[in-house]
């Protein structure tokens, strides 16, 4: 038994994903060939066109979505919210891995070290760990309801963790002498660089949405198959509200 969406997927191309990939490719081309190199940092600075959007999307969009979808799931108990959270976590972890790889790639030529306890990079590292824990947790639970609840709890607590990591890193850096970091992306950028940045943000966001949607559909089909194997699906109202206290 196939759903209309499944039939459609098999025959047609995922247009959103195709456009997103093309947009990202265009960004790369533009960044490498058509954008001037920055005066002091040279070629290495171009990594930032990948690094910055990935950081923003991975940390704030993907993780934010995981946390918000988690809270909503605990309130509404709609399994679609759980699928959104799980898909967002998987795609987000990829983005954050990109951040953690491009960070040192940029850092070595510029700072001379592979790693520095830069505030945002450190935060990304720890939320990356939380994400990995999230995915491992999901992999270790079979029952869908338990898996969804536990993931949601972890997501919310992870969101609460963010300000504390921020504070800790900030205090650490203030009280310890650290290399002065030069960061690109200040307002006085020439227009061509700003345009490339804008293109980068748009294309990476598009890619995130496309990947999220694709991953969500995959999860939807997997859940539908699992349900078919058990009992016949019946429409049942949602399990709402507070847990038993």
């Amino acid at each position, binding site marked *: 038994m196939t759903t209309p969406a499944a039939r459609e997927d098999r025959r047609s191309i995922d247009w959103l994903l195709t456009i997103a990939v093309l947009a990202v490719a265009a960004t790369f081309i533009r960044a490498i060939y058509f954008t001037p190199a920055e005066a002091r940092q040279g070629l290495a600075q171009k990594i930032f066109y990948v690094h910055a959007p990935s950081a923003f999307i991975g940390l704030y969009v993907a993780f934010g979505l995981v946390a918000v979808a988690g809270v909503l799931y605990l309130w509404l108990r709609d399994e679609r919210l759980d699928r959104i959270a799980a898909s967002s976590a998987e795609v987000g972890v990829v983005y954050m891995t990109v951040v953690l790889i491009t960070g040192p790639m940029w850092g070595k030529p510029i700072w001379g070290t592979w790693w520095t306890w830069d505030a945002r990079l450190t935060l990304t590292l720890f939320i990356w760990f939380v994400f990995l824990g999230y995915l491992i947790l999901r992999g*270790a639970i079979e029952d869908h309801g338990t898996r969804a609840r536990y993931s949601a709890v972890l997501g919310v607590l992870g969101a609460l*963790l963010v300000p504390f990591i921020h504070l800790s890193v900030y205090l650490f850096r203030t009280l310890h002498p650290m290399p002065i970091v030069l960061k690109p992306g200040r307002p006085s950028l020439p227009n061509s660089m700003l345009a490339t940045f804008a293109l980068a943000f748009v294309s990476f966001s598009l890619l995130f949405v496309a990947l999220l949607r694709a991953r969500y559909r995959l999860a939807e089909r997997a859940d539908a198959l699992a349900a078919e194997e058990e009992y016949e699906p019946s429409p049942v109202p949602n399990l709402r509200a507070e847990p038993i206290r």
Partner: protein
Amino acid sequence: MITREPPGTFAAAALIARKDLAIEFRTRSAFLAAIVFSLLAIVIFYFAWDSTAVSAVDLAPGVLWVIFTFSGLLGLHRSFGVEEADRAIDALLASPVDREAVFLGKALANLLFVLGVQALAIPAVALFYNLPLTRVLGPLIGIAVLAAIGLVSIGTLFSAMAANTRLAELLLPVLALPFFVPIVLPAAQSTARLLSGRPIAEAMSWLRILIAFDIVFVVACALAFPFTLED
């Protein structure tokens, strides 16, 4: 019917904590394992230490609080294992006590467990690294209590979840360690300052983070706990 007055939240939590401690005291295996682990780890760190390169005061705080974290994890796991074994948790949840009391009771038992291990580990560190501990004993105990509160809040909640999964013991460190960073970092930094003879006020900015963390996560974990129960 027999007359009854079911205990309120805190009284029930105390009951549950006493029960957990009675069980642990009966077997003692987890407590001994945690202590032995701590002592071994301290010794290993000691032998890995080049005293000409790094001074004791620089190294010891890190050693102390890292071991604190890992020995704490050892103890936390057994907290819900004993409930899972014969589904005693069902009897607990079917009784009139509320779910927050179950969390608080178990967290309290874990807190005493962790502090018990620390009561032996801290003097051991002081002994090995020749630290002037008596001067700073008061504040150090305060830091230990604050760190332990944060550790057991997160640890109790996560061990409730981990107990229900396939990976159990492996899962708990993976989930919990990122959350322990805002505990270990302030604890180690403020301990280092205290041992260097700096005034307490300097350590306060770190301790403020730890106190805020404790307040936020004790509440958050207690509120999240009922969601880890099937309903």
